[in-house]
């Protein structure tokens, strides 16, 4: 696939959140360095239907480019991608996204597990997974796959989560490397 100087991405950060996670992102994104280079993929559970203004909202909080992940789009460094509502997101070996409208997983589409596992499959030890507030068990299986492939898993400190079930579930299943507050997550990422 030698196609000239495509800006090849070899690392990726995947962030999953459900109820109570939007506030965390609104705090986290402004703290990231404006030249933060590793692509970030954000998968949030949302109520079905209707285009939520998530991209617009998050764009106001950071200088990094925020956009919805598009079908077969090549992933670029220095970008934040939002997984569209009602689709799962997968990663191709050529560095592009694929969307998938198959069965819900953990009652969710997009599912955090699907995105995390797909990232682990392609980016192996170069994945950092971050799991935020939520009332769902989604993300734990994905963390297991990230860890199995040598990546890093970070759970939001349950005491600081509006709904602690989701990060707690991952912690209880022993698939979490670090338990951090929002500020600590920002500091960790800025030092990568």
């Amino acid at each position: 696939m030698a196609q000239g100087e495509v800006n090849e991405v070899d690392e990726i950060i995947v962030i999953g959140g459900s109820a109570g996670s939007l506030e965390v992102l609104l705090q986290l994104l402004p703290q990231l360095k404006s030249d933060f280079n590793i692509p970030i993929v954000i998968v949030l559970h949302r109520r079905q239907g209707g285009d939520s203004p998530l991209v617009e909202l998050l764009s106001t909080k950071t200088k990094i480019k925020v956009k919805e992940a598009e079908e077969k789009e090549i992933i670029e460094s220095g970008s934040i991608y939002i997984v569209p509502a009602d689709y799962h997101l997968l990663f191709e070996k050529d560095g592009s996204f694929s969307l998938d409208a198959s069965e819900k997983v953990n009652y969710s589409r997009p599912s955090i597990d699907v995105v995390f596992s797909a990232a682990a499959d392609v980016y192996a030890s170069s994945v950092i997974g971050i799991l935020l507030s939520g009332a769902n068990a989604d993300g734990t299986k994905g963390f297991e796959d990230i860890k199995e492939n040598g990546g890093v898993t970070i759970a939001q400190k349950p005491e600081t989560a509006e709904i602690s079930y989701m990060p707690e579930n991952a912690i209880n299943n022993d698939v979490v490397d670090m338990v951090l507050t929002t500020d600590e997550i920002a500091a960790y990422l800025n030092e990568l």
Partner: protein
Amino acid sequence: MEISVSEEELELLLKDVYEVHGYDFGSYSKASLHRRVNRLIMLDKFPSFAEFRFRVRNDTSYLKRFVEEITVNVTEMFRDPSFYLALRQEVIPAIATKPFIRVWHAGCSTGEEVYSMGILLKEANLLHKTLIYATDINPDVIEKAAKGIFPLSLMKQYSENYIASGGKSEFSSYYTAKYDRVVFNEELRKKMIFATHNLVSDSSFNEFQLILCRNVLIYFDKDLQHKVFNLFDQSLEHLGFLALGSKETLKFSTVISKFKQLDKLKIWRKVK
């Protein structure tokens, strides 16, 4: 222990499926295939990839299940109601004047969207002069679609979708409930032709005023997407319409210069 097939194993499997059974999945999205294969191995509790591969190679009846599970068959009636509202308002009036209307649903799965289209045409008083061709790669889902039988439990959701799509009738007037299932009216079904058609290998078979292919192309790689867009172009009449899924686009295809997109919609009109 969970099984995750390697890239090489996936290639071997796809080669078998093509050489032994003639289904070519070589241009499907690898990420999706990989996930679907792992999922099927888990669902059917195969102890190893080798045993799975053996079964796919040698058991023709299992191959049917393989094709049905590897392809995605998630669908619903009036999926994205706003899309159906746009069909009612923008597309149907434009094709209404034709003496005879031909519609093609490519990748129709179990037919929910085909019956939705039938209801739209019926309500526009056009069904009597319409034929809807509904095709899918998968013979089993085509068989289900042709029967027009769906679970009663889904009708509440479908009825809400129908109303959101601009439907003004009683949704339940379109079907007869029998125990936990419903059968859609013969009047709709007799205007539908269900057949297998493989977008990878089969060619154009008619000229249409409207082609719908929603959430199918996302499972194809770029080359196959281009090929299918060409096939649709060849199969559309001048001023015919092409409708895609909410995250699919004709924008990067080689035929885009012949098409004009309807404002903010995933519907393109062939203007050249």
